[in-house]
């Protein structure tokens, strides 16, 4: 039995916005009977070009129905630009999470939404391009690449959970493995920028790292460490206990404390001892 959240159960038992809108502005259909799940999404825009109504019909399991129901709730009131930003993970989050084997249900929701928006904008739904990797489910390398990038997928099983590829005969597993390796080795052009942390965030993280990682290790040898100040990426600390008299304290400071802080907080940090 799947571990569904109460919210999944609620949206399955009491689905919101079931049906189709007859004079819909956008219509998106994904999936098929053969695949075991399919979703038809329709939406209507108001005068301000916001989604005033969204309805769905879904053939599929409980999480497919719940994901579709959640999607209609999420996009109501949004502009199309806002709606276009909804990710499959947003749908899963809205439901309090989905079992990982069911993540493809949230991907189906996102795909239907994209198609419906494209339909409204008068774009012919882009024909699947790229090389078919999974012949059982007709999944291309582009779809696998996208899912792997957006969801940081690491294994073939992950890819199967998100887009079904590899879930049939298994002949494409090697190729999926290659694609994952490519994606992970060669990060996306639009990869997220390295996080810029404020000083306050850095101080908080330094304190956490000292408490969680560094102090327990020093305590074992009867030593201790205290954060004195932080300025321009320099971390001022005071060594206490046996550390303060230990001849190797500078080694501890540079090779252990600084390395840990660089690794866990920010690579620019430098540690300096306050002796007083």
């Amino acid at each position, binding site marked *: 039995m799947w571990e569904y959240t109460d919210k999944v159960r609620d949206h399955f038992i009491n689905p919101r916005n079931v049906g189709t809108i007859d004079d819909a502005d956008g219509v998106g*259909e994904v999936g098929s*009977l053969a695949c*075991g799940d399919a979703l038809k999404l329709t939406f209507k825009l108001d005068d301000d070009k916001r989604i005033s109504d969204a309805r769905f019909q*879904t053939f599929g*399991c409980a999480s*497919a129905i719940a994901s579709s129901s959640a999607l209609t709730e999420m996009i109501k009131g949004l502009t199309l630009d806002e709606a276009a930003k909804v990710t499959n993970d947003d749908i899963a989050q809205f439901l309090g999470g989905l079992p990982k084997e069911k993540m493809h249900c949230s991907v189906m929701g996102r795909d239907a939404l994209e198609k419906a928006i494209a339909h409204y904008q008068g774009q012919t739904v882009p024909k699947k391009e790229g090389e078919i990797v999974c012949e059982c489910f007709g999944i291309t390398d582009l779809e696998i690449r996208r899912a792997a990038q957006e969801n940081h997928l690491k294994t073939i099983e992950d890819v199967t959970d998100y887009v079904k590829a590899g879930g*049939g005969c298994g002949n494409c597993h090697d190729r999926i493995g290659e694609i994952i390796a490519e994606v992970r080795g060669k990060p996306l052009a639009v990869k997220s920028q390295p996080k810029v942390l404020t000083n306050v965030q850095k101080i908080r993280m330094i304190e956490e790292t000292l408490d969680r990682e560094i102090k327990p290790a020093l305590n074992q040898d009867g030593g201790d460490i205290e954060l004195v100040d932080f300025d321009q990426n320099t971390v001022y600390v005071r060594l206490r206990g046996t550390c303060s008299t230990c001849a190797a304290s500078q080694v501890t400071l540079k090779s252990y404390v600084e390395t840990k802080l660089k690794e866990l907080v920010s690579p620019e940090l430098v540690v300096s001892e306050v002796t007083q």
Partner: protein
Amino acid sequence: MNTVYVDNNATTRVDPAVVEAMLPFFSEYYGNPSSMHAFGGNVAKSIQTAREQLATLINATPEEIVFTSCGTESDSTAIWATISSIPDKKHIITSRVEHPAVKNLYEHLAKKGYKVTYVPVDRQGRLDLDYFHANLSEDTALISIMWANNETGVIFPIDEIAQAANERGIILHTDAVQAPGKIPVDVQKNHVDLLSLSGHKIHAPKGVGALYVRKGTKFTPFLIGGHQEHGRRGGTENVAAIVGIGKAAELAAANLGSSMTEVARLRDRLEQGLINNVEMAMVNGDTTSRLPNTTNISFEYIEGESILLMMNELGICASSGSACTSGSLEPSHVLRAMGVPFTAAHGSIRFSLSHYNTEAEMDYIIEKMPPIIERLRHLSPFWNQGKPDESMFTGAECPI
């Protein structure tokens, strides 16, 4: 909320008489049956009694029964024991609708260099006997064909298969876990060499099974260790569970007559009730040669997991051949081998009864199912105003 349990091909309730028989072996009689002292020796006698009870159920002799931990172990033992004993022959035969305990091991052996023949079935799930006969060869070491299918209940002609195997001196193994207690299983009438049984399918606990090994059959142990089970299966015996499966075997033999007739009557009532009250519902499998407790019904244009979870809300427990319920992405290999269309395979529900079920329970299911089906069809894009509508979704097709 009451539970209406119609999933007895998955597992069964342990019979209270079985529990009672087992209990002393947890507390009072905890001796090791291999011990020299009488305290252990008496426990060995109880195992012997269980062996006799099980032998009686299938008309074997007690020495031909090896206790195992489950049906899967029995299957693995039968298959490995045979191919290790006959290393020169490299061809093995099975059906396309076996339980994973057999199917996956055969697929594993195919990768190891064995030539495997998978005998197909027809639309009713009946074995293609012509294909079977045509593929027997001098190089065939082993045939594994189930006695009755767990998903559809279809019973295979083991007598004819056994005859062909015997004539050619090919070892015949049958996974019979679904058969005993539901239909007569007689290894004298049906000359099989190896036969797998499982405790929890016949109202004994989980964690115990048995393998029938015909006297004189070449055998190499699968679990190698101590001398237990006459050197055919190492490991200290799961005494209480073995006592349990023995008692359950005795009760199963007694249940075969009027009790199974009643189960069949309830099954037919349920099946007819559902077919008559739900549009586009159909029975999967050959209804003329079928276990008395099983019916597999497809509710077209909706998906099985959704149906099961709606049923679950009402306390009704059953199984589905849909893709989503198994964690795999493809619907049941049994229904696919039968050529059941996708419109129906995804929405298949298996009801499997036991003598614990009542007529009132069947009527409850007959009353509750139609609204569930209607509700899910209302949600389905393939159903429009009371009719199937496949006009949409002409684009991407899923070739599986």
